[in-house]
Every structure is written in C-alpha cells, then in structure tokens.
C-alpha cells in the first residue's frame, strides 16, 4: 500500500477509480507514515473523491494547520527565551520547513522543535532554556555523559507547562558518524527569517534531510522524509538555476555526497522527482533494499518485511558508532 501512497503523492490523478476498501487502506497507510496531511493537500480539489474521503482529508488539513501553528509558536517561545544570548538560532527539520513557507510544509506533521546553535554557545543556550521553563526529560548521569561525549545534540529538554520537547543540536550528525558535516559552514550560510530566527540555506536543508533520512535512524518515517526531499528539490530547482551545482558543492563540503546522491535516486524512483543525473549518479544494487525498506508497510498500517527492517536497525547503530563503542554502549545499557 505504501507504493500506491507514494504514487498518488507524486501524481494525484492516480487515485481515480480507487474502491472504498482501497481508500481506507490508503488513509491508514498515510497515517502510519505521517503523510495524511501531505496527501490531503495534494488531493485538495481533486474531482470525484468519495464524500467520506473529502471529510477525512479536510479534517487532516485542519489538523496540520494546527500542527503548524503549534510548531511556529514553540519556535517563537525558543526565540524569546534565547534572545538574550545573542546566539544565532537556526531552525531545523519540520519547523524550518513551515517557517520558511516551503511547499514541503503543506500538511506536514511536526514533532519536536529542533534547533542548531554554535557549539561554543551550548552552555549559554542550555542555561537560558532552563531559566525559561524547559527541564531535562531524564536525570541520568550516564545518559548525560553519553550525549555530551558522543552526540550532536544536548539531551532532550521538555517545557514544563507546554509539554513540548526541544532538541538542541550543535551539528547535524553525531561526531561518531563517519561523515563530518561542517557545522560552522552550515551556520555561516544560514538564512534569516523575518522573526530573527534562521534556517539553513536551501542546499544545506536538502543535505540535512538526506543525512537525517539515512544516517540518523533505521529509516523509520523515511517515506515522509523523502517526501520533504522531493518537494524541496522541485521547489529550489525551479526557483534558481544555480541550485544543482551548489547542492553538489555543499554535499561534498559536508562529506555527504554519496548520501545526497542516494536520496536523489530514491526520490526519483518513488516520487518521480526530476533530479540532476550527474549528482544522482548511477543506480546501485543496494538502492533496491532502501526502496523496499521505505515501502515496507501494508494497508492495515502494519510494518512488513521484518528481516529487512531489522537489518536496517542494526545498520543504524553500526553507522552511528564504531564497533567497539557500540559494544560498550549496548553493554552499559544492558547492565545498569
């Protein structure tokens, strides 16, 4: 069912002629992949939808509108809390996408607030957030040490009255990952929004999305992340003919050229995204596995392809940590 979902997102007219049971399955798969809001905006105005589908999609659009308000408000609260530090505050992921008014933000579900700040300002930022009502989610010295040493972000904080989490990053991949993105360059190229908050440059947003899709997890929620990439590539390329060469240049700078290339190939395969063939490179056999993993969900919303999922889960740990460190991490988790 995920394949049909991807096809309809890419080409809404592909939904014509679906039967009731297929619609129910499509809605369920879209919910499971956090793509119902995006689907709802893609199908807005599509003729001949069943009345029930019209209602479900309309409610999904309202819901994503509310998600957008909440995300922007949380960003504004962080801006107010951090105004005194003078540090640049760069929005990442979903909040950045909606704050920049990008097409990818239409209907997008948004979870935690993710921000990027310069590494040397982490202590100031942390102090100001704690003063403004954010609290550590868990008090645990091992976790704290683990984050400080091995992670690209502070341990998660949650606001005590608004119950919203914030992830404060100082770069976009853990220091243990093999690619080493240039955090200073990310910050230097960032773009100011009217509010004073910032987003990454368009090219860096795509690079970050690609890094996040592959390196920072086991591809859970990958279909949604790839949809972000599809929308951004289309929008940025249409806006600016210099986009593709700059994307290639930034991908190289952040040591993420193969990652970006793979994201481009997958976007092209699943969402028919027009991509720069030189940057995308030649298809690789392993692309098949990634494609299958991204589509591993049925019309009941159940995950499928258990073995493939597990392989990707192992891979995510492998990529984040060198083997010795991984062993030490799993040992500590198991024995404390």
């Amino acid at each position: 069912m995920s394949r049909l979902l991807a096809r309809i997102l890419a080409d809404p007219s592909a939904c014509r002629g679906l039967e009731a049971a297929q619609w129910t399955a499509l809605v369920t798969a879209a919910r499971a992949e956090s793509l119902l809001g995006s689907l709802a905006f893609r199908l807005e105005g599509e003729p001949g939808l069943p009345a029930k589908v019209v209602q479900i999609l309309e409610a999904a659009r309202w819901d994503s509108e509310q998600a957008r308000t909440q995300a922007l408000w949380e960003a504004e609260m962080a801006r107010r809390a951090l105004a005194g530090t003078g540090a640049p505050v760069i929005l990442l992921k979903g909040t950045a996408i909606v704050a920049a008014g990008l097409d990818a933000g239409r209907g997008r579900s948004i979870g935690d607030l993710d921000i990027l700040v310069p590494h040397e300002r982490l202590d100031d930022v942390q102090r100001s957030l704690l003063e403004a009502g954010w609290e550590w989610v868990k008090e645990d010295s091992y976790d704290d040490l683990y984050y400080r040493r091995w992670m690209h972000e502070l341990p998660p904080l949650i606001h005590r009255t608004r119950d919203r989490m914030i992830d404060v990053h100082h770069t976009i991949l853990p220091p243990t990952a093999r690619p080493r993105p240039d955090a200073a360059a990310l910050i230097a190229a960032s773009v100011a929004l009217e509010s004073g908050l910032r987003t990454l440059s368009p090219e860096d947003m795509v690079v970050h999305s690609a890094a996040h899709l592959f390196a920072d997890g086991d591809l859970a929620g990958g279909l949604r992340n790839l949809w972000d990439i599809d929308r951004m590539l289309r929008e940025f390329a249409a806006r600016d003919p210099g986009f593709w060469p700059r994307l290639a240049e930034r991908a190289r700078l952040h040591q993420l050229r193969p990652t970006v290339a793979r994201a481009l190939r997958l976007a092209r395969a699943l969402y028919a995204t027009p991509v720069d063939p030189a940057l995308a490179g030649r298809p690789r056999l392993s692309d098949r596995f990634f494609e299958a993993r991204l589509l591993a969900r049925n019309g009941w919303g159940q995950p499928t392809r258990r073995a493939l999922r597990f392989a990707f889960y192992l891979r995510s740990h492998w990529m984040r940590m060198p083997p010795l460190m991984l062993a030490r991490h799993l040992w500590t988790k198991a024995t404390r």
Partner: protein
Amino acid sequence: MGDAMSEQSSKEGGVLANPTRRTVLALGAAAASTVVTIRPALAQTAGSVMNCQIPVPGPQHSGQYIAADGSLVAPGTPGSFAPPARPITGEEAKTLLRGGFTPNGMDSQSAQAYANYIRRLQSGMSGFTCYASLQLPR
C-alpha cells in the same frame, strides 16, 4: 445566563473587558494568579479508551530502587524501596494517587514512594501517558 452572554460573546480582539468608565478595578495581591491555560486532556476518557500500566521504574532504569520522595536511587539505599514485582495498573495508580487503599502486595510506605515516582513522571518517560490520563480535572 443565555441572553446577556450571547450579546457580548463575539467581540474580536480589541475590547477585551468591555469597560464602563469609572468601574472599580481591584488589582489584587501580587501573589494572586489570574491566568489559567487550558491544557490537553485525555482525562475523563481514561477508563473508556485504555487499560494502561506504569512500570516502576521505567525499563531504562530497571533494577533501581525508589526513594520515599519518588526519585530513583541505587539498590539497597537506606530508606528506599524495591520496585514492585509487576507494573502498576492504571486503576491501582488512581487509588495510590488518591492516597486510598494500598494495592495488594504493597505496604503503605512503599506504595507512597511509588505514588511519588508516578507524580514525577514526565512526557517521554514510560508510563507518562497512562499517568496523564489519570489526572481527573478538579
């Protein structure tokens, strides 16, 4: 209630307080709170939607003991209590938090410590949604 309300009800922005000149306004004591924010409630539906449980402590901290104030401490710390043998059910948690009967198999002091642990749960921790759903409004 009806009529007076509906006349006033749909004022957009601007005239918040509908003031008549020289209405007496008490500013109140500095400590008196005047803002209540409506927060999401799974509240009263708890019983009808779920049958939840709270692991004490959560899986990430298994093996740790619970101090009287609900914080987690190393096993065997004086004045602390061993975790319960099984997760606390939503129904039991409700009773515990009200300070009512002690569920079977618990003594009252450890029950108090568990209740304090549950009160300290925060979003993102195991059992939090269960706890949040038990917060009956007052």
